[in-house]
């Protein structure tokens, strides 16, 4: 099978080179047959990428350990379901996966491209083919997944244990697919620019492909966070690790893009700016690939580490130069002559929101690169990690959330004072009331309380927006549900956007809760002993072994009781005097008000070959807070050492996911060109009541 894979890669290399050259020459000399042939060559590269991937997957299925990559990432014990994961578990395989994703989405987007873009298509095809050419070249000559071993081992090394949780079936593919997906809108817009197609013809293709990519990347990141929280047992979900950051940065820029593209759609403004955003996003995605493939920074995500750094750095540089040379060349034609009429308009708020997104991106980039910079400038290594990013990005992110409440309420163009006052009065009141209630309840941490106020402000603003639109339609005779449905249907991009905004609010709720109010304690328990934290009592009742040949593993069974702190007055004051947040109880007798609420089963495994520990946290999750138990180790004397925390509002982090996906789909859903009924007649009578 290795031979077939190698042949497919070489063939793909030749086809993509032919496709790029053929498209350019065909366009230049006006030879249509050559352009058509180049386009078909691009379709054929997809076939070769699929064949190469199939060959590798087949090798995994057949346990063909003569192939080094297969021997390194699987063994005969591995559940066959993990073949898919093993496919992209290492450097070479993940490159092949990226190529597969790129070639498939290239073919689809070229196939479905609208006819009015016909004149820029040869250039788009050439750009896509050149990027594929790069990956085919790397795979064929530098990092071949089909490298053979001199002596065939009887057994493979097995799959990386950190990649065996179910989330790994989707998190890495989505993330890598999202990163490479940025190529599509970039290729379409660049193609249009080269062909001198300056108008809005590329707007729909760019918008749709950008939103899909953005949604995929966002979902991938969220799944990664969820995986880290439930599986890795880091106790957290986002560590501002370099690899996480390089995925976040293009996502932020794409977020800016999908906002400002709406201004271009509606008002014909920001054309130049939108092109620049796509260029930045594309270059950042290349930076992400570079840092993933052996960049100069240390990361916990070392699955795909390699020595390909230089090649990817070079490719990133080329992308950077190409994107911005093209941009500067065509800039004069992109200028828009539309006027910004007021600082207090939706287009102005979009622009400010764009700059805030870029600011977070810039700051994050600075944080990622600062260690390298420090090393080079003065030969002192420093670390830049979560505490830094929390501090510098936190305020800007909060600013973005504030804009989320203000922007949508501002109308296009300009506004007048009275209506503005009307719109903002409720959000501000609700925000202030929220803060007041939280203060009255004696909740601490002013920054967090303020942030909760902001969330309430934004939520009210969205609610008000829906209320106004729904009420107006309700007055014209629709029932409430239908009225709301008509409202959303009338402008799906906008209302899908609001649904995504709601998911972001949920995410923010979880982030604020877990960052500001987490409580933690450590302890070790023997069977029958309990650990008490806050109003929970966790009793270690049983344990069972789940070791396999490749791992030493153990489950712990623990029952969770809700306690009344009054029953434990003595212990609590003693623990406090000691400076502890929790304490252990030797005896298993229950106090009067202890109430059994749950059973959790944390798991800890140690993989001998990999010298690597993996855990499953025990989590009792409620809307208010998570009780989160990480088994750090099962000790020789039969005790289990635990890290226990209470993560307030963590539940909301994961609920946001479905809303994010649904909102994105609503925004993407193709809409009919106009509403069914003419709004004009229907509305004349009621406009007075509304305004």
């Amino acid at each position: 099978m290795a031979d077939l894979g190698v042949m497919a890669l070489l063939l793909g290399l030749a086809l993509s080179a032919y496709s790029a050259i053929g498209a350019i020459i065909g366009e230049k000399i006006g030879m249509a047959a050559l352009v058509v042939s180049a386009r078909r060559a691009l379709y054929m590269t997809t076939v070769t990428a699929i064949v190469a991937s199939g060959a590798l997957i087949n090798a995994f299925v057949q346990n063909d350990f003569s192939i080094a990559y297969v021997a390194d990432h699987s063994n005969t014990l591995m559940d066959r379901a993990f073949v898919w994961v093993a496919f992209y578990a290492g450097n070479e395989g993940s490159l092949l996966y990226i190529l597969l994703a790129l070639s498939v989405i290239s073919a689809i987007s070229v196939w479905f491209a609208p006819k009015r873009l016909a004149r820029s298509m040869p250039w788009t095809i050439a750009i896509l083919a050149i990027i594929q050419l790069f990956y085919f070249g790397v795979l064929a000559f530098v990092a071949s997944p089909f490298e053979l071993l001199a002596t065939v081992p009887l057994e493979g090394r097995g799959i990386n244990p950190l990649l065996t949780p179910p989330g790994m079936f989707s998190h890495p593919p989505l993330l890598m697919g999202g990163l490479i997906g940025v190529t599509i809108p970039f290729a379409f817009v660049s193609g249009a620019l080269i062909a001198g197609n300056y108008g809005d013809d590329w707007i729909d293709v760019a918008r749709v492909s950008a939103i899909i990519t953005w949604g995929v990347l966002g979902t991938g990141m969220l799944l990664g966070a969820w995986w880290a929280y439930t599986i890795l047992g880091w106790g957290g979900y986002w560590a501002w690790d370099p690899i996480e950051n390089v995925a976040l940065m293009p996502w932020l820029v794409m977020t800016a893009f999908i906002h400002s593209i709406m201004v271009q759609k509606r008002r014909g403004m920001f054309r130049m700016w939108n092109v620049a955003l796509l260029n930045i996003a594309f270059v950042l995605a290349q930076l992400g690939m570079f840092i993933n493939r052996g960049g100069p920074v240390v990361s916990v995500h070392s699955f795909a580490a390699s020595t390909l750094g230089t090649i990817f750095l070079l490719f990133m540089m080329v992308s950077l130069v190409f994107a911005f040379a093209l941009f500067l060349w065509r800039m004069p034609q992109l200028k828009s002559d539309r006027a910004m009429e007021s600082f207090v308009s939706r287009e102005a708020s979009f622009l400010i929101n764009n700059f805030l997104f870029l600011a977070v991106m810039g700051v994050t980039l600075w944080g990622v690169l600062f260690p390298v910079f420090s090393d080079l400038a003065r030969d002192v290594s420093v670390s830049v990690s979560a505490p830094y990013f929390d501090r510098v990005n936190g305020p800007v992110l909060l600013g973005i959330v504030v804009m989320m409440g203000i922007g949508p309420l501002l109308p296009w163009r300009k506004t007048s004072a009275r209506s503005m006052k009307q719109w903002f009065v409720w959000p501000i009141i609700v925000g202030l009331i929220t803060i007041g209630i939280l203060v009255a309840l004696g909740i601490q941490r002013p920054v967090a309380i303020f942030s909760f106020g902001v969330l309430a402000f934004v939520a009210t603003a969205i609610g008000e927006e829906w209320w106004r639109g729904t009420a107006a339609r309700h007055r014209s005779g629709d029932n409430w549900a239908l009225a709301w449905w008509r409202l959303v249907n009338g402008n799906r991009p906008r209302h899908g956007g609001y649904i995504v905004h709601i998911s972001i609010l949920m995410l923010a709720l979880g982030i604020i809760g877990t960052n500001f109010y987490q409580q933690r304690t450590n302890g070790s328990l023997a069977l029958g002993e309990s650990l008490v934290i806050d109003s929970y009592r966790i009793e270690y009742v049983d344990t069972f072994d789940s070791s396999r040949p490749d791992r030493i593993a153990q489950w712990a069974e623990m029952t969770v009781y809700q306690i009344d702190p009054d029953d434990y007055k003595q212990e609590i004051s003693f623990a406090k005097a000691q400076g502890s947040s929790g304490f252990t109880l030797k005896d298993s007798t229950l106090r009067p008000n202890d109430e059994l609420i749950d059973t959790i089963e944390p798991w800890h495994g140690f993989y001998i070959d990999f010298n690597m520990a993996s855990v499953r946290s025990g989590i009792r999750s409620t809307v208010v807070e998570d009780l989160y138990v990480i088994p750090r180790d099962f000790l020789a004397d039969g005790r289990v050492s635990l890290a226990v925390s209470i993560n307030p509002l963590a539940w909301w982090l994961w609920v946001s996911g479905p809303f994010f996906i649904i909102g994105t789909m609503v925004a993407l859903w193709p809409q009919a060109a106009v509403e069914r009924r003419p709004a004009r007649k229907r509305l004349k009578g009621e406009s007075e009541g509304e305004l």
Partner: protein
Amino acid sequence: MPILLGTLLALVSVVVIVYPFLGSKKYRLVSESFVTREKLRAERLRIYRKISDVEADFTSGDLTEADYQHQRDQLRIAAAEILKQESGESMPNAKRDEELEKQISRLREQSAASTEAPEGGDTL
């Protein structure tokens, strides 16, 4: 066997990319007028969308009646002009295409401009 499959794949690829050069089918680049018609149509549909957006804005109370009527009329006129171009676009020749290109860009500006208010349009 793998070698055979690989060779087969190579052969198929060659056939696929050589095919456009063979046979009776001749390809030519998409004509300017075809692209122009497509662009006009797309532009018109974008204007329809803008009209429905303006209607939605008005329904939700984001626009005053006067603003709404004005913007809508401007957009309707822009759409009508494009329709006129489209119906006139039956016999393609290069010179005409060039002229149309100019008209499109003018229309595009117009459709964007039509979201401008009349003087003193803020009647609130």
